[in-house]
């Protein structure tokens, strides 16, 4: 913690102003001074265990880790010397001997810190034999793979899993060394958030099928292949093609997918508009009847799994509304199939999601419509980028195209779903107009936006104060549930996203991911919303049309837009 007092220090003979109490690594990063740091992640507490960030401090003996050394007035730091290089080189050689390289099939895609450092420090990567070559590979449901033979014991995954309030990844003593392993404890189960993937510096975690199965959805030539992409993907996938952080590239993304030879490209944000309308309806209903309050959002399958497994007493609080891509998948296989006169069995729906939990969600039996899964495949943002690269599609160069009609034009409300607070804001916009019958003048609910983990806000609708809380990060949601156990009337409406800052920080997003990157991705989404003419979900012409023409009964709405939840037993048995 810094005390906000400005001080002057010296790094590599350069005078630098910084805050007293910042770490050397923080100051170096702010000043574009390169210090390698494998185990450091700004989302996590400093552990200082990889020992690559060692620096010299004039007047002090030995080497000191930059990540855990705090600056003080006058401190004089050297970040590069023969001693430092030697220490980093040998420690890297030791780390490489724990890490079975599989660079051709790694989420870091040759953009890996280890590999870069190996070059920079002339590391002999094979100096010691790989001591982990026989270590096991674990699969967590349909979502995650953990190859422990790649693990360098930095424990970022253990820490983030703990921070998520899950604690499924554990350290277990095996002989005289410890291993990271999934818990055998019956009361702990993975929620598939995939934060271990984005916080692992060396690619020991990946999505199931990443990247070997990316072509699968395209292989069956007898099918009509439809891709739909999630809100947050449009401002994150550009990173994989060296576009600036937060670049809004919806059109390029659509063009890229079309170039893969798929039949149609739809936008999950359109599905989000349906989710919003149904969710607002349900919220109004529950507020009126004072039943099952507070209402919880349910777009995030990891949050749903968390409630079903860890806190089943709260199952009635979850909104029964399906998540956007499931609703849109359902509409594709009903409304659109009817309209186009296509046998829904012949349709393959592929969702491109920022998320590995969505791979789990699509397997839920209760979501089936006429015995068909609404969505057949989920590809993560990373997987789609990989698929593009394989097909030599460069999003930097490609000319933008529009998504297909009729399920390709969302409102601004549907786009902000990708950021923490987006579902809340969209639902509040619609609920406000539905309750008051008036036009909402100020559309921006700024209290629910931003990078804070817990955002409490009271919204005045027709003289009634609706108490909301918007939470990201499962560990924080756990705290809110604890509050609710003591005081059930604390909130009326709760939005939870398992990942930091919402889907922009999802487990399927490009790596690296940190607070600054997530903030830029979110900023892009709000930019889109601001520029949209229609920013209220219920005013989407397509939504209106479907409610008028296709959703002819409550049953039909329920059939496509709603679901149920069940108490869950441990799913992952190791």
């Amino acid at each position, binding site marked *: 913690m810094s005390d906000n007092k400005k001080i002057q220090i010296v790094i590599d003979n350069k005078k630098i102003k910084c805050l007293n109490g910042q770490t050397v690594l923080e100051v170096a990063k702010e000043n574009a001074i390169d210090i390698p740091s494998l185990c450091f992640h700004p989302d996590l507490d400093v552990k*200082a*265990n990889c020992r*690559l960030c060692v620096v010299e401090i004039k007047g002090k003996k030995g080497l000191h*880790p930059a990540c855990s050394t705090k600056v003080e007035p006058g401190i004089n730091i050297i970040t590069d010397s023969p*001693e430092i290089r030697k220490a980093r080189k*040998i420690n890297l050689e*030791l780390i490489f001997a724990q890490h079975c390289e599989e660079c051709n099939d790694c989420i870091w895609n040759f953009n890996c810190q280890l590999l870069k450092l190996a070059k920079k420090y002339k590391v002999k990567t094979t*100096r010691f034999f790989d001591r982990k070559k026989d270590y096991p590979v674990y699969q967590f449901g349909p979502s995650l793979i953990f190859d422990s033979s790649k693990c360098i014991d930095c424990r970022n995954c253990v820490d983030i899993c703990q921070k998520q309030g899950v604690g499924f990844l554990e350290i277990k003593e095996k002989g005289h*060394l410890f291993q990271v392993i999934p818990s055998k404890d019956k009361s702990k189960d993975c929620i598939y958030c995939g934060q271990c993937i984005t916080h692992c510096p060396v690619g020991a975690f990946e999505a199931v099928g990443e990247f070997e199965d990316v072509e699968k959805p395209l292989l069956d030539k007898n099918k009509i292949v439809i891709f739909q992409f999630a809100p947050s993907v449009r401002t994150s996938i550009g990173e994989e093609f060296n576009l600036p952080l937060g670049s809004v590239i919806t059109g390029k993304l659509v063009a890229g997918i079309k170039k893969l030879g798929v039949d149609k490209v739809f936008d999950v944000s359109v599905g989000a508009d349906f989710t919003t309308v149904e969710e607002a309806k349900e919220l109004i209903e529950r507020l009126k009847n004072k039943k099952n309050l507070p209402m919880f959002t349910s777009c995030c399958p990891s949050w749903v799994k968390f409630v079903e497994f860890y806190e089943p007493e709260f199952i009635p609080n979850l909104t029964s509304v399906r998540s956007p891509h499931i609703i849109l998948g359902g509409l594709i296989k009903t409304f659109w199939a009817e309209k186009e006169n296509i046998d829904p069995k012949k349709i393959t729906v592929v969702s491109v999601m920022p998320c590995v939990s969505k791979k789990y969600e699509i397997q839920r039996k209760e979501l089936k419509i006429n015995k068909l899964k609404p969505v057949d495949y989920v590809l993560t943002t990373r997987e789609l980028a990989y698929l593009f690269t394989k097909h030599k599609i460069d999003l930097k160069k490609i000319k933008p195209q529009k998504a297909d009609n009729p399920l390709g034009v969302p409102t601004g409300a549907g786009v902000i779903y990708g950021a923490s607070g987006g579902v809340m804001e969209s639902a509040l916009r619609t609920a406000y107009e539905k309750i008051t019958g008036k036009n909402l003048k100020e559309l921006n609910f700024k209290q629910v936006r931003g990078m804070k983990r817990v955002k409490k806000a009271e919204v005045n609708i027709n003289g009634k104060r609706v108490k909301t809380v918007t939470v990201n990060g499962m560990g924080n949601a756990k705290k809110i549930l604890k509050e609710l156990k003591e005081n059930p009337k604390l909130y009326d409406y709760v939005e939870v996203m398992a990942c930091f800052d919402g889907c922009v920080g999802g487990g399927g997003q490009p790596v690296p991911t940190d607070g600054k990157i997530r903030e830029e991705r979110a900023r892009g989404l709000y930019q889109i919303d601001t520029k949209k003419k229609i920013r209220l979900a219920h005013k989407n012409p397509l939504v209106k049309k479907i409610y008028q023409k296709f959703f002819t009964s409550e049953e039909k709405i329920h059939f496509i837009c709603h679901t149920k939840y069940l108490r869950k037993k441990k799913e992952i048995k190791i």
Partner: protein
Amino acid sequence: MDSKNVVTKLKRNNLLGRGGANFPTGLKWEMVKKAKARKKYIICNASESEPNVFKDGFILENYPKEVIEGIKIALEVMDNSSAYIYLRKDYYEKFRNRLERLTEDLPVTLFKKIGGYIAGEETSVLESIEGRRPEPRIKPPFPPQSGLWGCPTLINNVETFYYVAKIAKGEYQNTRFYSINGDVKNKGVYELPESYLISQILEETGNFPNFDFFIQAGGGAIGEILLPNELNQPVRGAGAVIVFNRGKTNLFSLMKKWADFFLEGNCDKCAPCREGVFRLAEMIEKEKIDKETLEDLFFVLEQTSFCALGKGVAVPFRSLINKLK
């Protein structure tokens, strides 16, 4: 007891911590005493687990009253404090009844240590008592600033508390306890002046060898190997002297013992110690030492390890290899 007086006395007598790190005890007490906090903790560290060091067990066996007296003084000096005695497993079993009886009226809890050698390192002790895996914390903050559950905490070794009691009574004569072991006639623990040279200690206890020998001084793992012509210095560390008959000692077996001890006893948190010790043990196991790799491992262990254990691993191996191989 006048608490200001105690700290002054500890300082005047220049008592140094007897756990091995030699930190001035008076200074430590002063830091905890001056720290402003609602709650403070005192920990008596009886985790003694380096091979051939057994003086704390000896003190608990023979002078438990003095140790408890030392803890009692600390409880009086530190406002709103309570204490833990952190005991290695077998010491816990062995001394539990006696210590419970002696601390009946005191806010003292006995704690059975879980884990190996590293679980005796002072910040690992804190982690252990707080219910986590014993491994060292990032310092600063040091325990006197923020220790057990974030409260100012005084951690002293058993022997240190013993001497606190002695100093308070004015009976301290600048002695310390030495564990003497190995190829000697009179194994055991001896209380002798701390200024004694190793040769003096061996002679005075009737243990000076009449054969070709070398010794390990300090502790049976982290201690340095010394030759007969290097004995004109006092013992550092935890005060152990281990004598080896040079003709009868298999050097690789000895190094294997150390390597196994470090493999078992370190916490595996930081890369250089976890992997460095693993590779060192591997080399020794194969009895094929590559000097360049060995020096590289020593370098990162000494320069980049997280805690003093990793930083100290090289000492016995390097001194043995340089002096005897």
